[in-house]
């Protein structure tokens, strides 16, 4: 399963695979460490097909163990501290059978859990003798959904050689973006630069010190879905909301105004929700899009629609427009009930300029005048002191 990775590791054995707490770990170390984990997993009787809760963040052992579990055809459920409040729930939903926690010192603790994973989707995966990965969608509204992926499908696209990068793991270990960064970097003999704190200062410091060449930060530039992976996206121009999405392994189509995606790395389904696939196997994103030739304009979810006096407003469109304004670092747009117009458009904004609310509103209206229909221009603006993104880089709409 990971032979192609081990081959890359062998070719680069003297190079650094991981930087963790200012310490380099070479590819030869990583290869040895994976073997050592296999012995430990044997000893703990972690069988193929076992559902393993992996509480960790990017660290040498967390990376080695992740790969060892793939080699063993286990189902990996990575969980980071960012979901602490939901941990018990997630372990239950995933039907975790073994728990391995890797602490801040990179030391591991095993625990056998009194549970048997019997979900029908697990049976399918075990039948294929493939490793699996559970990723929880953070869901801006509603309940987190547990998506089961066949890791064989995810690994497939990393078999193609690409540029070697020194990448900062800004995204989380239990986030599709984080997993993607890790596998991409390792499959090309690059270097994973880990950070203990994901503050802008620390990330920049690490980027400079270790000559990072790649800082993947999710929300703006890519169209990422934990269900199908990260799609490459290319804007028409820097201030355009029209994007081309797709790339190798992805196909897109529009059905009834809704974006469908067919991906090589498609997941098997949700453990705790109905299948999001169409009968012919396309993933139904739920995002409404407009089409102009090869370009799409992603409007957002129908369920998030705001109704202003009978006119429809998609939060995503307003958000993308406001993000083009100087000084707007973050923005979340929601609807609010209002007696005069049914609902109003409310924008919560993180502003890095020194403007007060009135000055900002004035500039916003001027800016939006020729970009948004009048009813789409936020009728209410709230300036926030705190980032509008949750720890998991998903907009908080509630």
């Amino acid at each position: 399963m990971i032979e192609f990775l081990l081959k890359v590791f062998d070719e680069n054995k003297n190079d650094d695979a991981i930087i963790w707490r200012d310490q380099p770990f070479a590819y030869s170390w990583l290869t040895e460490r994976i073997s050592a984990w296999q012995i430990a997993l044997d000893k703990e009787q972690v069988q193929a097909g076992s559902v393993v809760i992996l509480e960790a963040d990017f660290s040498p052992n967390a990376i080695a163990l992740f790969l060892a579990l793939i080699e063993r055809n286990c189902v990996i459920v990575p969980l980071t501290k960012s979901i602490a409040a939901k941990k018990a729930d997630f372990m239950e939903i995933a039907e975790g059978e073994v728990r391995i926690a890797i602490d801040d010192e990179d030391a591991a603790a095993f625990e056998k859990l009194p549970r048997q994973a019997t979900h029908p989707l697990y049976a399918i995966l075990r039948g294929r003798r493939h490793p699996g990965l559970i990723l929880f969608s953070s869901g801006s509204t509603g309940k987190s959904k547990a998506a089961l992926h066949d890791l064989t499908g995810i690994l497939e696209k990393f078999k193609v050689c690409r540029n070697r990068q020194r990448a900062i793991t800004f995204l989380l270990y239990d986030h599709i973006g984080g997993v993607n960064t890790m596998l991409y970097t390792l499959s090309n003999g690059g270097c994973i630069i880990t950070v203990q704190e994901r503050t802008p200062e620390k990330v920049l410091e690490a980027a400079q010190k270790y000559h990072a060449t790649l800082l993947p930060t999710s929300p703006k530039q890519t169209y990422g879905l934990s269900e199908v992976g990260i799609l490459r996206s290319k804007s028409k121009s820097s201030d355009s909301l029209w994007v081309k999405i797709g790339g190798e392994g992805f196909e897109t189509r529009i059905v009834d105004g809704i974006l469908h995606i067919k991906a090589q790395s498609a997941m098997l389904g949700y453990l705790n929700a109905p299948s999001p696939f169409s009968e012919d196997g396309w993933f139904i994103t739920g995002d409404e899009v407009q089409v102009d030739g090869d370009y799409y304009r992603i409007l957002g979810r129908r369920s998030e629609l705001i109704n202003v006096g009978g006119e429809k407003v998609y939060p995503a469109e307003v958000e993308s427009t406001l993000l083009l304004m100087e000084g707007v670092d973050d923005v979340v747009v929601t609807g609010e009930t209002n007696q005069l117009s049914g609902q109003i458009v409310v924008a919560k904004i993180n502003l890095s300029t020194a403007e007060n609310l009135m000055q900002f509103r004035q500039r916003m209206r001027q800016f939006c005048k020729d970009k948004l229909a009048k009813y789409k221009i936020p009728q209410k603006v709230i300036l926030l002191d705190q980032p509008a993104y949750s720890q998991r880089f998903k907009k908080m709409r509630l």
Partner: protein
Amino acid sequence: MEQKILDLIFQIANEFNEQLENKIAIHQGREAHLYGRNGVLDSLGLVSFVMAVEQSVESEFSVAVTLADEKALSQQNSPFQTIGSLADYIKKLIEEASRTSG
């Protein structure tokens, strides 16, 4: 308090005048028309205006008032007609709020 409320509405009228073709006649003071007969705001403009006033009232007087509710809409004389009528209405709401909170 009344002057404070008026000042706050004038400030917001100023803000809105930047983008309005027919401007709010601030020089007319309390008599300046906002919405309805002789008004310069359309219904969307009124919504934004009222939201801005609500926010300013809240930060100035530390009391949350809802200007656009059924009560306002059912008043025989709309409180949104002029700057003066709006100011009176806000004053009334603030007084009511402070009475109920003790």
